[in-house]
């Protein structure tokens, strides 16, 4: 068995796969402030749910922000991992848009899953999951609720500022002037969709197009981004673990190279 660990800014994901690259089990836990501990917990959970032991694991590869801090034999970048993961599941995908807790990225890959080009957000966190986390706490709605409320919106508010801090006061001012919370949420989804659209335009939107990362679990955001791009995306069943899955695939490759 092989394991991929994606130690992200917000969540830690581990995926256990067999030698054929099929997913055996996975776990997602909050990263907290200790990447090593959270990765150990995520691994323990994934092992438990597949009734495996640590000694069943032949090789581990890590990726994500905490990649160098967790226990793995090899580290790989998220760009390569997400590409590898998506290519294995959906070989026809040529463009990946991944929105995570602190980063958003767009990657263009070829028919072999090789990275041709990529862009990532600049230093600002406005186009990332962090933005939605901040907003959900301001609006007093848990992050899981955002999607349901999004689809209740009839007239999304227009958020002109792309800065998290300014957008926050803009949203508050809209709400105090009588806007509905669902319209604020739909407006926020549109605002980050627009930012990600602008960033990704630099590498283009060659089909097929896949969305990955934790934020792709939010159907409201997926709806806003697909409308903005004008393409129906390929969505993995669990978009948040693709990077970890790709790291697991790298573990198979690395293990073969080392044996």
């Amino acid at each position, binding site marked *: 068995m092989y394991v991929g660990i994606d130690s992200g800014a917000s969540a830690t994901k581990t995926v256990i796969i067999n030698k054929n690259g099929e997913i055996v089990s996975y776990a997602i836990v909050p990263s907290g402030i200790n990447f090593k501990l959270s990765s150990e917990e995520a691994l323990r959970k994934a092992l438990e749910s597949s009734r495996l032991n640590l000694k069943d694991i032949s090789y581990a590869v890590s990726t994500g922000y905490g990649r160098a801090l967790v226990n793995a034999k090899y580290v*790989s*970048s998220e*760009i*390569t991992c997400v590409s590898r993961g998506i290519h294995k599941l959906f070989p026809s995908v040529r463009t990946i848009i991944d929105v995570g807790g*602190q980063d958003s990225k767009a990657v263009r890959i070829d028919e072999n899953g*090789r*990275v041709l080009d*990529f862009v990532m957000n*600049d*230093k600002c966190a406005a186009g990332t999951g962090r933005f939605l986390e901040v907003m959900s706490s301001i609006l007093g709605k848990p992050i899981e609720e955002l999607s349901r409320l999004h689809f209740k919106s009839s007239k999304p508010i227009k958020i002109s500022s792309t800065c998290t801090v300014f957008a926050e006061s803009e949203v508050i001012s809209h709400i105090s002037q009588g806007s509905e919370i669902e319209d604020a949420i739909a407006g926020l989804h549109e605002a980050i969709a627009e930012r990600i659209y602008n960033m990704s335009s630099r590498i283009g939107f060659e089909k097929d197009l896949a969305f990955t990362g934790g934020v792709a679990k939010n159907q409201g955001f997926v709806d806003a981004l697909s409308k903005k791009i004008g393409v129906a995306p390929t969505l993995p069943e669990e978009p948040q673990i693709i990077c970890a899955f790709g790291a697991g695939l790298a573990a198979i490759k690395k293990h073969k190279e080392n044996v």
Partner: protein
Amino acid sequence: MSSQRERSRVLQATRKTGELILEYFSKAWDAKAQGKPIAWITVFTPVELLRALDIYPIAPEHFGAMCSARGVALGYFEEAEKKGYSQNLCSYSRCGLGYALSGMSGLMPPPDLLVTFRNSCDVYVKWWQSLHMHLGTPLFVGEAPYVLTLEDLDNYVLDYVVKQLEQLVKIVEEKFRLRFDMERFVNIIKLSDRASELWLETLKLRRSRPCPLGGRDSASDIFPLVIMQGTEEAIRFYEELLEEVKKKVAKAEGIIENEKFRLLFDGIWLWHAFDLIKYFEDRGAVFVYEPYSEAWAHRLDASKPLESLARKVLAMGLNVDIDLRIERFLESIKEFQIDGAVLFSNRSCKSWSAPQLVTADILSKKFNIPHLLFEADMADPRQYAEDQIKNRIDAFLEVLGET
């Protein structure tokens, strides 16, 4: 952490630049004590002319870079910010203004003259006006029109700059009762030309595989070319450097072992984060070309000293059309066998960063060369997210490894 903070590999000659810089600043205090006028200049000001007038030039931009590299810039930024200068302003200007506003008892003696040219940079004139406002020091602002075509280097535009150089001489002669010595000036022009010649020859040797001179070298070795032009010390420095680099080339010795990727760096270096260069080098990537390193290297003709210097003022740095700049940039890809480009989008220097999206597009579409574009600030560490940038570097090097 200790290995992280370890310095990147440098040449023997480069190791001397730290001392050279400190000595240059300390001699400025000596000059001041002897009653010589000190000029604070922006780095695209013709130091050759001032030197011929026996004026000692120093550049607050150097000071900003030095403070940032030594981790002491923050205090000056705060000093300027307290007086209302926005954090969105160029960090060199904030550092320089902060120093001016806090007593000027450090590296730079207070100025007797402020000289800037409206070439290259959008901030210079306002920055120098602010210094003038705070310190009351006499101010000279020269203007070099933006060079749209290379013909501008020979037509009325050139005459316009020549006249301003003459005017600068006249003003300084009257103000400080100094005499411009033509013979001395011609000799300074010769020395300046020689230093540029040596430096350009050295840079050419970076075409060799493995590359004998890395990013850390080029970032430091540029100092004498900017401010010490027209001195014998500058020549000695560049002679020594060239000698060392030639020897390395003859022995096929690279600045790093196992050179895997040859990179272009576009922008001003991140003075507070020099270990980024090492981060690249540790992964087999070496910087072989930077437009920055060529920005001050201009050959001069001693038979037409003033004209030739005016041409340099016009063609320096960012004062030439973006298309011409991009052209040179792209030439370098073949010349230096570049595998990938690192484009540093500098929050402080929009004149530099503006064309980067266009260049990035050409790099991928026309040359199929991967690039990495990241945002930070050259001198302000508060605008720098180390993990985020390293994350992108890792991804970039992986992509390079696959191509």
